[in-house]
């Protein structure tokens, strides 16, 4: 049967074909926008809010770094030396009092209001009082305005970490007048979050144009910023999966991609862009429960040390990609108090054998928990767990893998009922005191039922008393002793990669600000 298509069908088909071909040509269509002054950055969103005093996630922090200035900063990303930001600072000899003086007197918020000490005081008090995720930064710190240019921060106990805490994007300085007008308070009644998400109130190089926690956040240049005018007047930060980020960087569709893993990063050649590799501030480790009823063999120090000497650490750094590092403790290598890399645990299978014999381990299976859906700086935890299982099996240790979605796994770990597994820790601020939670009495030590260890408690007390130059050695000693217990087995410090497209000629990328939008050219 011969069938000819009716004319109507043909007409509709031709019209569609014409529109399709028109649309297909629209790749370069500017559509009323201007591509040349827009920087497109892509990341898989981890975003709850950009209210600086509530945000505690990577994406929120990236955005707030561009919007808010902070009292102190890390110059050129040197995390061992906090420097002046909006304020200059001085610590008292006993590390209990910090005096801040307003330094950048020409700094202005995005509405043109000048930045005053009242704004600094309000920002500190709001962070502390609203009881959000980052409120702990100023726990035990009282804030007192001395005059229009001076503020005193007083801690009950010596607080040498304070200068390392203040550069955090969560302690951004907001325009107190406008925030108060929009239900901002310094207690739990605060209701300014929604306002701050839509209308940022900072004095940084950018301000928010459009906020959508699910799809994209658009920033525009703050015309009142007192620093150099950014080349890119607009920044579009989009929520895009890592696979699509790779294609977008390669094609020039995006200029910055945050989430490429080691394999994906290798696929970018010079014509497409380059990879800025930075040490991350994350630590990957094995946890062992010290309660015999829960941990079983893992509660035995000999068994734990056997596990520590059975691991092939070089293979783990290969897995984590170029730039990843061995760790002597959970403190990242660039921090004060880090245990030197040459003192990191080594593989020694003879030692493993002896220790297993001493522990009386008979090959029973030990449940090993981890987040199956999580990658930390490109290291897939499921792949890491499988690698460890294979390595330990060769040494005669049997792990029964217990994967779970990260939210479920976190819940299980916090309940302190898991014998063994993979833990991750990202530094809240670059100071060794941030790792006190791993010492008996700390909140993370509680999760493995590690209640006391007199030796470590003594070393911790000594480290707390140490003055500036001595802190490094005192904390290194404390954390070396912590590693020796093998309750936490440090595995690898992954690398932080940022892919930068070839259209960017000049950029600043460091461990403090992984990519500085305002300095890109």
């Amino acid at each position, binding site marked *: 049967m011969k069938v000819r298509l009716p004319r109507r069908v043909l007409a509709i088909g031709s019209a569609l074909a014409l529109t399709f071909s028109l649309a297909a040509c629209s790749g370069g269509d500017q559509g009323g926008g201007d591509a040349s002054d827009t920087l497109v950055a*892509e990341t898989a969103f981890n975003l*709850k809010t950009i209210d600086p005093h509530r945000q505690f996630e990577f994406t929120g922090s990236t955005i707030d770094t561009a919007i808010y200035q902070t009292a102190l900063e890390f110059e050129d990303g040197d995390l061992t030396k906090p420097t002046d930001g909006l304020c200059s600072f001085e610590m008292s000899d006993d590390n209990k009092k910090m005096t801040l003086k307003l330094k950048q007197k020409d700094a202005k918020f995005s509405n043109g209001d000048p930045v005053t000490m009242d704004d600094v005081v309000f920002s500190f008090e709001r962070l502390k009082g609203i009881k959000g995720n980052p409120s702990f930064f100023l726990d035990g710190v009282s804030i007192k305005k001395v005059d229009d240019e001076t503020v005193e921060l007083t801690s009950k106990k010596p607080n040498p970490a304070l200068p390392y805490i203040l550069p955090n994007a969560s302690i951004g300085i907001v325009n107190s007048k406008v925030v108060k007008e929009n239900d901002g308070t310094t207690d739990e009644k605060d209701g300014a979050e929604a306002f701050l998400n839509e209308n940022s109130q900072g004095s940084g190089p950018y301000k928010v144009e459009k906020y959508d926690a699910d799809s994209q956040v658009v920033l525009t240049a703050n015309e009142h910023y007192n620093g150099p005018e950014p080349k890119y007047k607009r920044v579009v930060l989009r929520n895009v999966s890592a696979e*699509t980020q790779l294609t977008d960087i390669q*094609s020039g569709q995006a200029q910055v991609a945050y989430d490429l893993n080691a394999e994906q990063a290798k696929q970018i050649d010079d014509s497409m862009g380059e990879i800025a590799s930075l040490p991350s501030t994350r630590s990957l480790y094995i946890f062992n429960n010290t309660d015999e009823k829960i941990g079983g063999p893992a509660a035995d120090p000999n068994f734990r040390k056997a596990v520590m000497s059975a691991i092939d650490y070089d293979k783990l750094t290969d897995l984590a990609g170029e730039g990843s590092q061995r760790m002597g403790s959970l403190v990242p290598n660039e921090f004060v108090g880090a245990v030197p890399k040459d003192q990191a645990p080594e593989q020694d299978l003879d030692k493993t054998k002896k220790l297993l014999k001493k522990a009386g381990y008979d090959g029973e299976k030990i449940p090993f928990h981890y987040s199956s859906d999580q990658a930390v700086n490109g290291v897939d935890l499921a792949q890491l767990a499988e690698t460890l299982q294979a390595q330990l099996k060769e040494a005669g240790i049997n792990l029964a893998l217990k994967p779970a979605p990260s*939210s479920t796994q*976190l819940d299980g770990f916090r309940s302190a009922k898991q014998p063994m597994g993979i833990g991750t820790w990202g530094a809240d601020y670059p100071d060794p005191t941030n790792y006190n939670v791993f010492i008996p009495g700390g909140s993370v030590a509680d999760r493995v039922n590690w209640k006391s260890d007199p030796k470590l408690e003594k070393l911790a007390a000594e480290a707390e008393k140490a003055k500036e130059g001595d802190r490094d050695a005192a904390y290194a000693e404390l954390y070396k002793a912590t590693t020796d217990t093998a309750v936490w087995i440090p595995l690898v410090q992954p690398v932080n990669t940022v892919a930068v497209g070839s259209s960017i000629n000049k950029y600043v990328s460091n461990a403090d600000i992984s990519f500085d939008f305002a300095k890109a050219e």
Partner: protein
Amino acid sequence: MSVSTTDSSTAHPPSSDEAQRIKPPLLPPLLRYILIRIGISLILIWGVTVVTFLMTNLVPTDPVAAILGDRAAADPEIVAATRERLGLDQPLIVQYFTYLSNLLQGDMGVSNQTRTPVLESIGQVFPASIELGIGAILISVIIGLLLGLASALKQNTILDHAIRALSLIGISAPTFWIAAVGYYVFFFKLRVVPGAGRLDPWITPPPRVTGLYTVDSLLAGQMSTFVNAFGHLILPSCVLALFTIGLLTRFSRSSVLDIIRLDYVTAAKAKGLPARTVVFKYIFRGALVPIITVVGLAFGSLLSGAVLTETVFAWNGLGQYAFRGATTLDLPVIMGVGLVIGIVYIIVNFIVDLIYGFVDPRVRVR
């Protein structure tokens, strides 16, 4: 069983008046049919609220853990305050009735993660998925029906075999893989379609009327924005349509084959009508009725099944919103999306039932 033989003899024979006065139905059959369908739909929607609430709340994990950072989670005061703020300290039944009563007032709750009202977020992302769904359904209906028709008319030829093989590939190929390969080939290598997203990043979306960028840009008279939005729609729609094309091709093929053998088609051919008229006016029209159901259900599944396609193309529609809600244990978001997708399915089924009711009078008197 005893059978009475007296009834007919003892009963009054109906008078001619009574015989003519057959009781009229209380409602016209079509109206009655519609009302019953509305009632069933409402019960189903209530059922969806129960199921989504129970399934979401019986997950053996604590959403507070997903909200709080490590430090805050170690502070029992903050944990207790968060539980109270989210209403998680109440018994499950109380939580359900609070949820239901809020729902009846148009309140789907607030995202635990972003503190944004769920209804507002769904209002933002739903049009994106609708736009993608409409694009996909148009492509799949046009291509699927034509392929199915061609396959049936050329039954057991090479063309038929080729189309059947293609439809099998469409049904069985994983959408995520097709999406990734499609993006690489058509965007990165050939540059015939624009990149991910609903618009190029430097283009400002048109003023919101419907939330569909193609429609809104036309309403605002922004032709270049329309062309850009349309371009961005092509590849994800085609990828999403592949499965439905396969399904519709197979379904319409068998439907056409059923019709082709019926007497009225033979009669039409015997009358000497032109082949085109026989195919499009007799065979195709007859085959269309059962296909309506497939199209309706396919639309619902496109909305709920677009998660991976939306992820590859950074589409930020309902699928991606649901994915984020599920991975962050954002209970109000999970319940909200579950309810909306359930309602879409119910409405689509309701419309399909109505169309049947209009098209085929036998349905409404059953």
